[in-house]
């Protein structure tokens, strides 16, 4: 009897809860307040290069495809897609009857116009190179878009699901000019209500949205606070619900708060010391010795305060996990390293290496550099860390290998997928291959992998490339960054992609 009564209660309660849940879904409620560290100068997807801009573009616009919080590709505007038999034309069917938030129709023509605008040299988009392989885009009727590819590309879904490929309203953009970057007209569940440069901006539901991810919040308020301490203070005083980029030293203080916690989602950001493959570093034994000399656990725990995990593969987690390969962690073995150096013909103190590090670009970058120098000294290398400002660092790591005067440089990479990352970094002579890496087998595989459309085939090809790169060690592999956000307990359902993009799809407030 008592059990029966209890189950009645439970049933009544669950009905109540589900009614409430329904209401929550039907009616956007509450204001989510977020403090971010970087000032998004523009939301125009052709120019935005910040995670916070990605988050806004994901909420305000729609792409043909999108990434879920684990970076898996999902259909968004697209309903169906197919390659032509020769792999040169990619056709996408899109949903019909959709509109931009200003009432303009979002048809095939609008989609084609959006892509052609980004690829137009006169636009000056920073993503033109990334998307150049899309070729020309044509609208066929109301609901079909054809990509006439510049070269066969089996990774087009990955490209199209990136927020840089969000569909912009070209008509509105032409009328608004640069102001479009602040109040973009898209077709997503939210729209930008106001934007005060450097101070913040506010998203509100887009009443005409009719897709699968309706707005759950009445408003999302962003405040821009670059100084870490001040930003943390906003969470501590309860003035915001979410803070971005919690520095390692503030994590205990945030975790000690009654109504907020730090969350640590993984990041695809992979940080390595990229070598210039000539002189002593042309010798694989020296590269291996360097890799063995580093205490990665010590660095990630001791210096990064836990905001990093030792690398176990060339690309970071979330970079197309279905194609990604991981390996056993590289051992910390200074004795082995010394032996390898001796084999390569270097007595202790004979080998001199210099390496370039930015300051303030990555978490604790200059401190890590000092630690690395210490580790190299321990195995008998004369190591000179060159810690420089961000501008100089950009210039140095962007040089042709032949012009470099140093031997290595720290660079973080988080890019749009396996093909793009590996092709750009390791194909012989390609413009962004700054190590001078060359391997005919890798070249052949990269070409084959780019054209391959079959996932199983891709897995095989990219598996082999990752094997070769991991054993060739053109990089001193270091760590994958870990994100740290402070989130108030009242926030439910906030998801963060491995590229640091906040996803508001299912966010509710208690």
């Amino acid at each position: 009897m008592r059990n029966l009564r209890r189950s009645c209660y439970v049933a009544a309660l669950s009905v109540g809860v589900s009614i409430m849940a329904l209401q929550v879904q039907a009616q956007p409620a509450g204001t989510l307040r977020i403090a971010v560290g970087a000032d998004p100068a523009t939301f125009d997807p052709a120019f935005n290069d910040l995670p916070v801009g990605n988050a806004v573009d994901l909420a305000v616009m729609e792409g043909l495809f999108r990434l879920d919080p684990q970076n898996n590709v999902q259909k968004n505007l697209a309903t169906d897609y197919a390659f032509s038999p020769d792999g040169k034309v990619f056709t996408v069917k899109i949903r019909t009857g959709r509109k931009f938030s200003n009432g303009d129709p979002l048809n095939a023509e609008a989609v084609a116009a959006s892509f052609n605008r980004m690829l137009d040299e006169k636009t000056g988009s920073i993503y033109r190179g990334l998307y150049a392989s899309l070729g020309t885009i044509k609208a066929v009727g109301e609901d079909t878009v054809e990509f006439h590819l510049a070269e066969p590309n089996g990774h087009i879904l990955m490209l199209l699901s990136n927020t840089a490929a969000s569909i912009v309203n070209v008509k509105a953009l032409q009328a608004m000019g640069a102001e479009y970057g602040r109040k973009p007209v898209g077709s997503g569940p939210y729209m930008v209500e106001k934007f005060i440069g450097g101070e913040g901006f506010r998203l509100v539901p887009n009443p005409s949205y009719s897709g699968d991810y309706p707005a759950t919040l009445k408003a999302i308020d962003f405040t821009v606070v670059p100084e870490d301490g001040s930003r943390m203070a906003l969470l501590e005083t309860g003035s915001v619900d979410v803070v971005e980029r919690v520095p390692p030293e503030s994590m205990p203080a945030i975790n000690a708060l009654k109504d907020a916690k730090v969350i640590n989602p993984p990041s695809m950001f992979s940080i390595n010391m990229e070598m210039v493959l000539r002189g002593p570093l042309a010798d694989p034994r020296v590269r291996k010795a360097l890799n063995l000399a580093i205490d990665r656990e010590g660095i990630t725990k001791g210096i990064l305060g836990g905001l990093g995990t030792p690398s176990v593969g060339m690309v970071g987690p979330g970079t197309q996990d279905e194609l990604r390969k991981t390996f056993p962690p590289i051992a910390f073995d200074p004795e082995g390293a010394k032996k390898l150096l001796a084999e390569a013909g270097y007595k202790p103190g004979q080998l001199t290496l210099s390496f370039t590090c930015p300051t303030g670009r990555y978490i604790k970058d200059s401190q890590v550099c000092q630690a690395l120098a210490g580790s190299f000294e321990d195995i008998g290398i004369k190591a000179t860390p060159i810690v420089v400002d961000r501008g100089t660092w950009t210039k140095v790591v962007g040089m042709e290998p032949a012009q470099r005067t140093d031997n290595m440089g720290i660079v973080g990479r988080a890019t749009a997928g396996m093909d793009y990352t590996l092709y750009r970094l390791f194909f012989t002579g390609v413009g962004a291959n700054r190590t001078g890496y060359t391997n005919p087998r890798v070249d052949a595989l990269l070409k084959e992998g780019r054209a391959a459309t079959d996932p199983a085939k891709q897995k095989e090809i990219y598996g082999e490339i990752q094997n070769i790169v991991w054993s060739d060690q053109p990089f001193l592999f270091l760590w994958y960054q870990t994100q740290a956000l402070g989130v108030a307990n009242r926030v439910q359902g906030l998801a963060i992609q491995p590229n640091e993009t906040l996803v508001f799809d299912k966010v509710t407030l208690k």
Partner: protein
Amino acid sequence: MFVLKRLGSALPTLFAVSLLVFLFVDLIPGDPAQILAGPTASNEEIESIRKFLGLNEPLLTRYGQFLRGIWDPSAATSFRTHRPVVVELSERLPNTLIVSIGGLALGLVVGTIAGIVCAMRPGGLADAAITVLTLAGISMPIYWLGLLCIWLFAVNLGWLPAAGASTPAHFVLPILVIATRPAAMFSRLVATSLLETMGKDYLDTARAKGLSETRVVLFHALRNSLIAAVSVAGVQFGGMLGGSVVTETVFGIPGVGRLLVDAVSRADYPVIQYAILMFAFFFVVINLVTDLLTQWLDPRTRDQERAI
């Protein structure tokens, strides 16, 4: 006449500044196109962005373009936002001015009062306390003081918001913090110059007329001390505009200083150049105004001008 002459000498100064700003910014390491394109961009892509930004033009052409941008807003757009730089600056300027002028005014008032208190009873308890506070005010970095104030007033006491600029309450802490330096400077300045004048004969005359001590100090002694204070205030105001870079970053205030910091880290050349040019322009104007005020306060300088 004096004003015209001063204005005439300001123009070459501004021209020299424009040249220096342009050349120095051009010397900043790092290529804006490369920074925009990101670390994975190929040479061809960087080249295409460089062409789009007009960075391949000869130096002289770019300088001409820079000068044109001073009166033609459409010729000077930000590399990042593509909006005219003048729009970006005018949007941010009010916040910077509120904090700088507010801080200076508050510092002036507090500092003068503290200075008078010190001068009235030199060596007293109040004098000692104010001297210690003054030393603290001059030596504490604004950056650190700002964080301390946030910790105390926002986090612990919960009286004021920690950062941002959406309500007037957001401006209270920054103005308080930024006022410490001028307050400290003025209290020292006013105290020493008051002590110096206090012994002068003309004050004895005033006292002999039967004026109260307060009247003597406020209307007879203080006026002379203010001459020095005005020139210091001018310099302080200029310093505050420069210091806005720090204050605005700590308190998350969207002012010109923050804009400048962001622009430097992203190599947004036009924004850096015009922001610095604008600061230089303010410096020139402030110097001019200070000179005029000094003339008004001190008739002797006027006579000198006439004599020449």
